[in-house]
């Protein structure tokens, strides 16, 4: 077995009674773009801060190329980082900011000038050397911060929600830049975000954090098509959940009884507390079909609302037992013309396309 480039092994972090990180282990390959995705307080930022050396783990180890990082202080780890807040040194110009890590490393003047120029070119801010950070926009400041974090060629770049202070349009623009920079430099990136869209757009793999643990690690499509837990299913993509009764389960497939009495078989079953009688069934809005007559496996619903969302239409429905389910239909779908608010309709789906969580 080859040794992983970066290995996080059994990291645990407690503050008195509070456990911020329970048990986090993962391996990152060289050049990989790995995102820690999760809500605030899920332990993703704490894990990143432990990597940066700002905090020591209560337990566990971090290995870079097989060497433990924990005894190395932050300033000797040679890791790059872009922060959530603007952290450019306000008393220095853009050029001096980017040169700062090189000055500390006592790199020669001529080489500094050349590398600063190259780094600013990488983030498309050539010619901004003499500007003071206060006179730049938030997006530009974060790009300078990126240049400053990359100028000393760190093996690993950490990014802690670097775009959360920017507006949506600018965020997408810089996401694109980050992707390009990742491809151009081949640097290994660990990226923290709570924005699933951002995670899906940028990452090679995503580690979904929940309550101090990683629920699942995988590529975006893997997490979407085959979520391991209820939390992952709810966090990645849009989702509906309804309660169902487990009739029987074997070999990871379950036979379920839905609230309306319909029985479906062959539903992928994900382990939870064994022996439970009820399960939560994941129905993706775009995997549901709507029709005015009963066809196939499904549920009887009442149309609650129809919302036009541009390239698709969201129909919100209510089941007989009062659970709300949203259905996403492509614009111009034939079902739309025949239904209106208050109508009775039939929702059907393939049991294979759903997931049950015990």
């Amino acid at each position, binding site marked *: 077995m080859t040794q992983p480039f970066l290995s996080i092994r059994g990291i645990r972090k407690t503050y008195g009674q509070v456990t911020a990180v329970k048990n986090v282990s993962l391996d990152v390959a060289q050049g990989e773009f790995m995102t820690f995705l999760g809500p605030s307080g899920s332990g993703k930022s704490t894990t990143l801060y432990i990597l*940066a050396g700002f905090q020591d783990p209560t337990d566990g180890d971090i290995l870079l190329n097989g060497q433990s990082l924990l005894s190395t202080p932050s*300033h000797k780890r*040679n890791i790059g*980082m872009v922060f959530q807040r603007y952290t450019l040194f306000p008393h220095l110009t853009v050029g001096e900011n980017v040169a*700062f890590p090189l000055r*500390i490393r006592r790199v020669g003047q001529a080489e500094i000038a050349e590398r600063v120029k190259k780094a600013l070119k990488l983030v498309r801010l050539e010619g901004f050397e003499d500007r003071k950070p206060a006179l730049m926009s938030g997006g530009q400041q974060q790009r300078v911060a990126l240049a400053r*974090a990359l100028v*000393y060629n760190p093996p690993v770049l950490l990014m802690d929600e670097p775009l959360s202070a920017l507006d949506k349009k600018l965020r997408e623009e810089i996401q694109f830049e980050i992707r390009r920079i990742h491809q151009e430099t081949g640097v290994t990136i660990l990226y923290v975000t709570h924005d699933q869209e951002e995670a899906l757009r940028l990452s090679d793999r995503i580690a979904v954090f929940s309550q101090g643990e990683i629920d699942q690690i995988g590529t975006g499509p893997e997490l979407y098509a085959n979520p391991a837990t209820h939390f992952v299913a709810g966090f990645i993509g849009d989702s509906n959940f309804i309660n169902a009764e487990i009739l029987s389960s074997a070999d990871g497939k379950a036979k379920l009884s839905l609230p309306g009495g319909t029985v479906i078989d062959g539903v992928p079953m994900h382990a939870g507390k064994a022996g439970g009688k009820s399960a939560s069934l994941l129905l993706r809005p775009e995997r549901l079909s709507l029709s005015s007559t009963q066809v196939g496996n499904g549920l009887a619903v009442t149309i609650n609302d129809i919302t036009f969302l541009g390239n698709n239409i969201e129909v919100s429905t209510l089941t007989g037992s009062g659970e709300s389910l949203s259905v996403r239909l492509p614009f111009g779908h034939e079902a739309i013309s025949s239904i209106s608010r208050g109508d009775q309709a039939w929702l059907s789906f393939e049991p294979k396309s759903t997931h049950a969580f015990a």
Partner: protein
Amino acid sequence: MVLSATTDGGQRSIRRNGSFGYVVPALLLIAFFFIIPVLMLLMRSVLEPTPGLQNYQELLGSTTYLRVFLNTFTVAGLVTVVAVVIGFPVAWLLAIMPDKWSRLVMAIIVLSMWTNLLARTYAWMVLLQRTGVVNKMLISLGIIDKPLALVNNLVGVTIGMTYIMLPFVILPLIGILKSIDPAILRAAALCGANKRQCFTRVLLPLSLPGIASGALMVFVMSLGYYVTPALLGGTSNMMLAELVAQFVQSLVNWGMGGAAALVLLLVTMVLYAIQLKFLNPNRVR
């Protein structure tokens, strides 16, 4: 349209007149009790005993008086440096402490400022005298054999004044240090800067405006300080304010007193102008 314009104009001028009216009492006070007396002093310094600049010539030409100037600037400079050096860590601590604790420490500092100046200065006399607590402690710890001369000289003046001036360094610094995002120091650390480099290359430059304004305040206040030098200093090491008092009270030489006071005022104003020029806090950094 015309009507509304007139009304607007009228209101504005009323407001302007009204606000001007409220500052009149203060302006009159300053004019009568500061500007006019200073001008009169200036007059006396060039008119007494005979018209001319002979008072200034004597003041700046004689070694006795130059010594007083030297004493004044040495003590003010020392007090400023020591107050900044020992005040900075306190301000830093207060800036990063949990609010609950920093408020308590601040209360202690402010309370010390509110305590009567004479009482505090006499307390230092007691502490620093040959048989005082400080000397006794140093002897019992075996650091010295004979008591040190800590009062009636410039050492005593410097110690006493540093203590009195400390809050004027600490208070403006806290605000500046609090405004520095700790993430900036983390970023510096990841860039490779060790603790010392984080301090000298990031924290210190960023807090320089606060240090400068605190230092200037202390320096200027120290230049003209009277009570502490008079009580803790010896008769042989006079400072400028004592010299002015001596000219006016003992020698009744208003000409020389006025000249000394105006030299002090001039130095202060020059320093203030330097601060405005180079360390304007409102300037975009």
